[in-house]
């Protein structure tokens, strides 16, 4: 049997700043603010942090947290450079570190000025893992994630009959959830017609198929199960995994461009947790684009490949549906905090502290990461004790 982290680690604290378009704080200040909130939420003090996993493509390194918090002896630091899959992949690295005793309390911070500073096309071009795309594909005019990912959605539509109405169902549902969330940027109602009337960015993606660019910070603290027992409201990690697609550096050379790295991670994480998709009460799914949600629901095993479009129809992923998805509004309508906002939302759901978006009686939940041209990550959590 594969090594198991089931029950060996828990999320003990979460912290989020206000999410906005426009901030007068630096990206480092934003994540220090969120980190302090997460540490306090856990009932810890900064000096208790001895592991740091900062966002690999972000504005801060572990040394910045050591310096600003005055930490005396950090014993573990690492990064998980997987773009939008980084935050959830870092949960796996953190769980390994606390389960093996390398450190006791690991901080996973992220902060960005995605609205106020550099645009996404510039950001991804600077990521080392984009060097193949940068050399061979961006000269032809394929620069931004929307352009890189749109052909995956187009092929899925051509092969399986997935429709723009189904994309709209995702966008409209995320907006409805955001309107229940005081810390969500988008508060204006959206209809399917609004989605279809939004301007085309790159076919099949319209503006309302694309996530926001936001300013804000978020952080979580992960501790070993033993230490977690002393904290306020620990949420146990039952299963966690990362997955890299075939041809991870370029989408175009991938045998099947409608299958993500998540398809490899999902069986491992579910196997570790000892549960299946049918046991999941709430899912926070990385939603940089609407179709990305549809594809991940397939790769997670909620439905067969090609049936994700039909799966999201009829309110199934709404708060009152069979599988509530992105109860906070997601990257599409809450804010783009690279999915750490998804991690925080899942912890709230597992604590029963998700306010108006609380899924009644939620006992098993999952959060995914997706990014870096197809990397995937998945964490499955259980209800707080």
């Amino acid at each position, binding site marked *: 049997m594969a090594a198991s982290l089931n029950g060996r680690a828990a999320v003990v604290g979460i912290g989020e700043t206000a999410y906005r378009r426009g901030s007068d704080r630096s990206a480092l200040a934003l994540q220090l603010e969120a980190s302090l909130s997460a540490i306090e939420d856990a009932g810890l003090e900064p000096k208790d942090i001895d592991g740091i996993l900062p966002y690999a493509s972000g504005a801060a390194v572990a040394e910045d947290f050591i310096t600003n918090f005055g930490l005396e002896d950090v014993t573990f630091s690492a990064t998980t450079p997987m773009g939008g899959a980084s935050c959830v992949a870092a949960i796996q690295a953190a769980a390994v570190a606390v389960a093996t005793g390398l450190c006791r309390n690991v901080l996973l911070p992220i902060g960005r000025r995605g609205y*106020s*500073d550099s645009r996404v096309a*510039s950001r991804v071009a600077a990521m080392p893992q984009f060097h193949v795309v940068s*050399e061979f594909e961006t000269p*032809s005019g394929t*620069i931004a994630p*929307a352009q890189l990912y749109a052909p995956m959605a187009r092929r899925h539509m051509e092969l399986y009959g997935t429709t723009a109405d189904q994309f709209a169902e995702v966008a409209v549902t995320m907006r409805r959830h955001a309107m229940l969330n005081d810390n969500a940027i988008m508060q204006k109602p959206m209809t399917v017609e609004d989605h279809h009337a939004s301007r085309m960015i*790159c076919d099949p993606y319209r503006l309302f198929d694309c996530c926001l660019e936001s300013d804000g910070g978020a952080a979580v603290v992960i501790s070993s199960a033993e230490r977690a027992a002393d904290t306020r409201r620990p949420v146990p990690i039952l299963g966690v995994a990362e997955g890299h697609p075939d041809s991870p550096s370029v989408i175009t*050379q991938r045998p099947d461009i409608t299958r993500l790295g998540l398809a490899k991670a999902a069986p491992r994480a579910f196997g570790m947790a000892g549960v299946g998709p049918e046991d999941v009460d709430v899912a926070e799914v990385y939603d940089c684009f609407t179709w990305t949600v549809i594809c991940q629901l397939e790769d997670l095993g909620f439905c067969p490949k090609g049936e994700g479009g039909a799966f999201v129809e009829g309110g199934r992923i709404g708060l009152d549906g069979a599988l509530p998805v992105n109860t906070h509004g997601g990257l599409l309508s809450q804010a783009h905090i690279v999915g750490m906002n998804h991690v925080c939302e899942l912890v709230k759901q597992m604590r029963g502290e998700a306010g108006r978006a609380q899924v009644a009686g939620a006992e098993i939940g999952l959060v995914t990461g997706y990014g870096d041209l197809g990397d995937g990550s998945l964490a499955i959590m259980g209800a707080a004790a």
Partner: protein
Amino acid sequence: MSARPPTGETIISRPVPEPTIDSKPYWDGLKERRLLLQQCGNCGLVRHYPRPMCAACHSLEVCWIESSRRGRLYAWTEVHHPFVPALRDEIPYVMATVELEEGVRLQCQMLSAEAVALRLDLPVEIVFRDVQGGLVLPFARIV
């Protein structure tokens, strides 16, 4: 929609590739209007994009073959938003993923294609165009 603050960095011109030791023959080939593909010197597997090792047999021996430039449309997107201001005048343009006869794929702009006319497996051929600063790029054209 609110305007962006002026601090946003924007990619102004079409990005220019920086060839490596492994990829230089590919870019040199394009300058001669030839589409060159790497072939494993040991097992014969054709691969793209250029890289040092064959994933099948782990040989570092490399040959270069010239592509037939014939292929089929594997996926596409019609770009409406000017992510690259240098391409603003070309909007809307279609980015195509072409599966070449040799079994590998190429990402390239299509010449004067209407997205409504596109379908999976549409036969296309690769042609060459000068774009800027001595750079020659492959483009796709419906056969």
